[in-house]
């Protein structure tokens, strides 16, 4: 999948995360995390993001997360939605999501 625009998904409500995915040509994956539980779960969140991106076949992107304490499954879902929007794709691969 190729990122063609900025994709966003999620909210800034408690227990949710706002994910923004931007293109990053030639510079790999960059994760910018801002989380209320960064000290406790920062590395876990980054791990979830990296694995999900790999599954979705994204190897170049700036992923910005503003996390208000979302569970891993929420992060994955918001990230997948943001990536699909960034790629302009509405035919989802449900197995990967």
């Amino acid at each position, binding site marked *: 999948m190729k990122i063609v625009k900025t994709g966003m998904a999620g909210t800034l*409500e408690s227990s949710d995360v706002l994910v923004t995915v931007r293109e990053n040509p030639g510079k790999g994956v960059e994760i910018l995390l801002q989380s209320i539980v960064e000290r406790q779960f920062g590395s876990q969140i980054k791990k979830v993001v990296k694995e999900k991106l790999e599954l979705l076949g994204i190897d170049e992107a700036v992923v910005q997360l503003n996390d208000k304490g979302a569970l891993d499954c929420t992060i994955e879902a918001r990230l997948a939605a943001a990536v699909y929007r960034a790629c302009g794709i509405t035919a989802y691969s449900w197995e990967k999501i």
Partner: protein
Amino acid sequence: MPGFDVMNNQENFSTEFRKVLTPPEKKDIEDFLALSGLRFEDDIEETAIVRENSEIIATGSISGNVLKCIAIKPDIRGSNLAGSLITSLIQKQYYRGISNLFIFTKPENSSIFSRLGFYVIYEVENEAVLMENNPAGLSSFIEKIKNETKAGITESVSSSQNGHLETSRKISAIVVNCNPFTKGHLYLIEKAASESVFLHIFVVSENRSVFPSETRFSLVKKGTEHLMNLAVHNGSDYIISNSTFPSYFIKDTKKIYDIHAKMDLGIFSEKIAPALNITRRFAGEEPLCPVTNNYNRLMAEILPQKGIEFTVIKRLEGGGSPVSASRVRQLIRENRLEETEQLLPPVTYDFLKSPDGAEIIKKIRGIKR
């Protein structure tokens, strides 16, 4: 556009967006903002109103890529209502196709917005702060300028060194609006370019001028093609026009021009100029417009403090008075298009004669002054 995610708001809150406010609604919003020392601005495109039962408890507005006039009822602050409100505003903007967002606010509020994913670009101490939700926004802007410049700057720097190294000639910059591009602007640019190793021209990007941004930019670009040692850039979001500077949070309205100048010139001299090795800024002398004249005065005061040399170039005169874009617009308004030919470079005059130009002429004649 795919549907956005709706998380349930706290049950009894409702958020609605309005493009047009009825006079009583506008008054309610104005009164609500006044409680936080804020004003409603006239260029607002949509306003979010959050109500609990029928009482307004929060509001925020959007204008272009800016979020502004954001306020929350004092006694419910801290309930993450700000999070819901900003989410609504961000999502509304995303629907409109705008994802890079800006907030101008008081410095004491910057921490609220930084928790919501906004980063400080620049702060005018105690007065104002500009924030953006893309931490790489400014650096990608500078990257873009460098890419637009590459070929030109290496050529002109090396050619000036092959001859004789003139240390007095610097890399310089000029900011222009060009509404529209006149012989006066051309003269100013030619003069500035002749006194520079390389000249960066920033065309202010805002949609308040009767000539749209893209038109102003392309006329300057085409009209300066004969000059080798310059590059024309879109001023984007980092060259801030006073016509679009959000000042809803500045209590003392007399200070608005000063704060705008400190913000715009601060970003220019501390962020943009060092990255591009710009050490000098030019401006045209401004005998007619008091706002621009005041800005020139502020540049003369502020820029040298920040290590940027500032030079005013005397204006080109034609037919007994200075050549200016406002005079051109005046002639168009008075149906004297032919007389603008002597004030305009061919590129602008030809544009005015084109179908796109005719549209703008109609618009100018429709505007009453």
